[in-house]
């Protein structure tokens, strides 16, 4: 039984390696060979979990070597879009829920308004993230004072614009009649 359990990591990795494309099989064999040299159960499991991920999603041929920056940008864009969605989603729901005219199809849902309401926090997030990253990296907050001042003015402008639209539209979100 103990022997069988000890073989589980090997079996898992073998199964994952079998799914690798032909041009990457050599690397799968390399991982299996490396695993065979490891004795400690924790090290074996840790190694297998990492390698299984590589075996299931190996780098594609022709993929750029230094694509980390692109991934980083895509993650930031995704996070910004999600931030915008979290702030705008509840308002869109309120608009739909409190306006029977929209639910019955009498009026059109104001997509353009919500696109604008989503865009503003998304842009805010994208403009604020370099400041946060700089601080987390140990950079002094006033290391680039002009850039910082411009960025803060822009952020304040975007935030004020968003709040103004929310204030203006709040009666509609709350279902007031005759609102536009």
């Amino acid at each position, binding site marked *: 039984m103990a022997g069988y359990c000890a073989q589980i990591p090997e079996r898992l990795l073998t199964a994952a390696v079998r799914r690798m494309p032909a041009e*990457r099989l*050599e*690397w799968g*064999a*390399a*991982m*299996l*060979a*490396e695993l*065979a*040299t*490891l004795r400690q159960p924790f090290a074996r499991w*840790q*190694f297998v*979990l*990492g*390698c299984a*991920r*590589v075996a299931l999603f*190996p*780098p594609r*041929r*022709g*993929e*750029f*070597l*230094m*694509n*980390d*920056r*692109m991934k980083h940008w895509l993650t930031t864009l995704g996070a910004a879009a999600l931030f915008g969605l979290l702030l705008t989603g509840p308002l869109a729901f309120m608009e739909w829920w409190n306006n029977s005219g929209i639910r019955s199809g009498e009026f059109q849902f104001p997509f353009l308004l919500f696109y604008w309401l989503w865009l503003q926090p998304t842009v805010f997030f994208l403009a604020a993230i370099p400041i946060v990253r700089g601080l987390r990296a140990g950079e002094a907050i006033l*290391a680039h004072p002009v850039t910082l001042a411009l960025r803060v003015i822009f952020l304040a402008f975007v935030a004020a614009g968003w709040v103004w639209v929310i204030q203006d539209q709040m009666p509609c979100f709350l279902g007031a009649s005759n609102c536009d």
Partner: protein
Amino acid sequence: MQRNRPPSEQTTQVLLALAEDPAAWRHGYDLCQQTGLKAGTLYPILIRLADRGWLETEWETEIPAGRPPRHLYRLTETGLEQATVLAAAKLQAAKAKRVRLRPRTEGA
């Protein structure tokens, strides 16, 4: 067209680890331990370095009984050149950071 983006921190770590003794053949787990990277991070880097022609790979020839031959890695000449450039850049960046962090004593 091939774009030249700066290598990630982890790729730099692997290149510098391999460049420490460029003639020596290294194996995956050994590199994991030296760099502190997990296998799931290290192997994609090794694969891409090999794709780029920066890494030479070979299978172990003298195999102890009871285990399969290991895959071995070392930098090619191009890889070594890149590692040298990266090491110089890293040193320069560290120097610049030290200068920035040095407290001002004038007028104190």
